[in-house]
């Protein structure tokens, strides 16, 4: 488990350190042409009367946000337009939740929380954004400038998994951290790292 504190986001961007290693960074599949699945076990700690971003996929902003005690999901489409969807799930502080996002390329994007469907967006007419080098930020809407506009929030992330179709590309249980980087259990080197120099 990692405790993500306000203004201290963690980043899933394994190609950000080295141009050629890992050779196939998992983040590249967070784009409209790929079928992928994200699974997260987390506990929200800052849900009341705040604007907070639980995670954001950048630079084409697709994100899970907290706004006025409600949960919203933002989708950026391939034509550059965005849509905001309110999710019916009621959020509370300090309650562990299972989040699952399933994206089937050019078909649909579904979101489940605690195994209950929260969202089902048809992508047959217009697909998710396309991007060559996306990254994912936990606890903010940006990683380059963290300030009062970054929608920073606090949460505990217990587990993170990313699949391409059924193939597990990254798996984190955060039991081993080396120099601010969570070790990827798959051995694929798809680490998640902390923005600051030392944990």
């Amino acid at each position: 488990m990692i405790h993500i504190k306000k203004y201290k986001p963690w980043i899933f961007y394994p190609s950000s350190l080295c141009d050629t290693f890992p050779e196939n960074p998992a983040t590249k599949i967070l784009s409209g042409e790929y079928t992928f699945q994200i699974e997260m076990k987390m506990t929200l700690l800052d849900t009341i009367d705040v604007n907070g971003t639980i995670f954001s996929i950048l630079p084409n902003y697709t994100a899970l946000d907290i706004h006025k005690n409600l949960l919203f999901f933002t989708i950026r489409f391939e034509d550059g337009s965005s849509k905001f969807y309110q999710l019916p799930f009621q959020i509370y502080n300090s309650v562990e939740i299972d989040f699952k996002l399933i994206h089937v390329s050019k078909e649909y994007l579904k979101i489940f929380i605690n195994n209950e469907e929260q969202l089902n967006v048809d992508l047959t007419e217009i697909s998710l954004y396309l991007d060559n080098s996306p990254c994912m930020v936990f606890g903010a809407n940006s990683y380059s400038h963290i300030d009062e506009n970054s929608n920073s929030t606090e949460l505990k992330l217990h587990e993170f998994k990313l699949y391409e179709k059924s193939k597990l590309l990254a798996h984190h249980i955060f039991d081993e951290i080396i120099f601010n980087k969570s070790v990827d259990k798959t051995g694929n080197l798809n680490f998640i790292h902390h923005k600051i120099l030392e944990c």
Partner: protein
Amino acid sequence: MEDKSIYFDKTKTKLDKVGCGFCLAKWTQVTIHLGIGLTHSCHHPVQHKIPTSELKRNPSVLHNTRYKKLQRKQMLEGKKPAECNYCWNIEENSNSFSDRVFKSAEPWSSPYLAKIKDSHWREDFNPRYVEVSFSNTCNFKCAYCGPQYSSKWVEEIEKFGGYSTSTVYNNIDELIVKNQMPYKQSDHNPYVEAFWEWWPDLYKDLHTFRITGGEPLLSKDTFKVLEYIQEHWEENPNLSLAINSNLGVPDNLIDRFIEIAKDLCENNKVRELVIFTSVEAKGKQAEYVRFGLDYEKFWTNIDKILTILPKVTINIMATFNALSVFSYNDVIEKTFEIKKKHANDQRYWISAVQLDTSYLRHPSHLSVKILEKEHKELILESAKKALYYGMTEFVPGAYGFSNTEIQKIKRLYDYAISEDSFDLEKNREDFIKFVDEYDMRRGTNFIETFPELKNFYDTHKKI
């Protein structure tokens, strides 16, 4: 990235306007081995002998030899000198820029393009990037080194002859025939004499000066250069100074060097000072390969230098070879520890210490290519370790391994597993002969030092 590419493209266009073989490095850059009397501009062409007859009337012949001037003439006349084939191959067979472009685009080259293109080929030119080796005097005899660069190696070869490998490794007969045997430090050396005659004029024009060896800290000429800079720095306060050292010389020499370096750095008598050193394994394994090394002392000296000199960066040039794979992880750990301990925002370069890993190609019997697949996998583990120790932010005061440092370790693995014309059987056979003879000559024990290679040794010894 795109900006750089445009800059290189513009440089190439300017060079090509003069001639398709025009390269500023033939004028602006030089490496001079004063201990042997060899010179070359750019490291790709083979070194050539400096005629002592020319030196007598003009000490700048250490760089401006008649031979080199004839190459420059070809370049100014739109021809491509044959000795620069390395670049012509790249330009003719790929879309990449060659070193002709990269070196001409360097800050020690590009400002002089107009002056050089309008010059006559017979004119002398003071180089801006100079590497000098005063002698081969060295207290080490690293397994992959040789008599040209180590006086200890000369002593061994004079006593025992070349190794009985298929290549007769480090045999000096050819050096004697080619008149390329190094001068002893005690001998009168006309090349060193010429250097000192040229130096006051050269110093004023230098962008970068790098002292290599042998072991530079064992050379009185190294200290003479450093003391000259202490006295005359106002003539060139922007000098980038680099010095190689094995960091295994007696304490009094290390301390003397640190004292001078402190003055140069604290009083801004140079633009930057960088120290280059080497290690590529841990403990006894490192001491086996870099014969003469005291591993603990090596790191103590690094710590001492970085503590007393808060602006200096130390670059570890690791020549990764077959005997590095089992303990390179420890070198990575130790480098990271030093990076962390000595990180500050004053360093000339971002890191206090850099690990610059290159793979050894010669002698081929020490190449990682001789190893088994399971050994090569250890290189990948090292690369993974370096990645997890990677620097997340490239800003002053940050530490961790840089993109380049990580890539170079990963590239080792790619090299180790790549398939080419490497003669595996011959090189394995040579490796066994080499370590057997090495142990006999030096009183070392290969199997005791490298128990991980016992099976490998036994298998190939039988063959």
